[in-house]
């Protein structure tokens, strides 16, 4: 299996409190986004933050795992929607930490019942590399429901 290397870069001007940064997908050029400390901890104002990027990463990681597991169980999905919420909080004695990542999935899966989806969801959580990583230091919750279109 090939090793995969992906690169991102950020230029930050000035201090954390008053400065701002631009984060770029250096591997692909697929995004270039501005970030500030205010967008991270206070009002968002259309700017991204490390936690939002992690939420996007976890949602994307999980959706590919879920699709793979459903296909393995003989029920390839037609469509899946995943929402991921990352929470950073101040932990006494440990400063700011990412304390949880919560995944909510909806899937259109022809022929699948809830038990199949539940089995696939559990396997997808176990198989998604990012779920495994973040579970070492934070709480991960995963829920999935079937939606219209399945028979």
């Amino acid at each position, binding site marked *: *299996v*090939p090793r*995969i290397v*992906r*690169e*991102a*870069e*950020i230029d*930050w001007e*000035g*201090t*954390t409190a008053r400065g701002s*940064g631009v*984060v*770029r*997908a*250096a*591997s*692909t*050029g*697929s*995004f270039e*986004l501005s970030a500030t400390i205010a967008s*991270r*901890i206070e009002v968002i104002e*259309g*700017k*991204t*933050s*490390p*936690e*939002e*990027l*992690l*939420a*996007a*990463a*976890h*949602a*994307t990681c999980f959706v*590919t795992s*879920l*699709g*793979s597991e459903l*296909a393995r169980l003989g029920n*390839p*999905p037609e469509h899946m929607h*995943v*929402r991921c919420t990352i*929470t*950073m909080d101040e932990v006494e004695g440990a*400063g700011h*930490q*990412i304390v949880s990542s919560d995944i909510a999935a909806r899937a259109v899966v022809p022929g699948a019942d809830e038990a199949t989806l539940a089995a696939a969801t559990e396997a997808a959580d176990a198989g998604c*590399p990012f779920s*495994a*990583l*973040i579970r*070492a*230091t934070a709480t991960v919750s995963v829920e999935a429901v079937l939606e219209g279109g399945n028979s």
Partner: protein
Amino acid sequence: MADRTAHVTWSGSLMEGSGTITSVESGAFGPLDVTWAARAEDDAAGLTSPEELIAAAHAACFSMALSHGLAQAGTPPDKLDVDATLTFVPGTGITKVALTVHGEVPGLDAAAFVEAAETAKDNCPVSKALAAVPEITVEASLA
């Protein structure tokens, strides 16, 4: 406390299907397309992946932590350029994050900058969240 939410949709199988990071709470980006091939092969073909997003998150987190640490020590930076390179081995997981930072910091010597960079690497929330990654490194140099 701060919550941040992202939405992703995927249609079809893993290998032949494709997905979209449809939106994020801030509205700062999206839609961004993703595929398995873009994630797993050397040629990402201009599409992002979870690993690239984690690299971006880590670079952003580290740069904020370092900037904050330098300012608290009385030597705020003029500019920090940070790279994060993440290595993902399918079937194994994320094996390494390599951070590099090039800084313009008036009044600071190279040894103190390296020390500040190590502290930021150890303590930024994304580093702590990625504590299970076997290897996280930082290389720091001044302009």
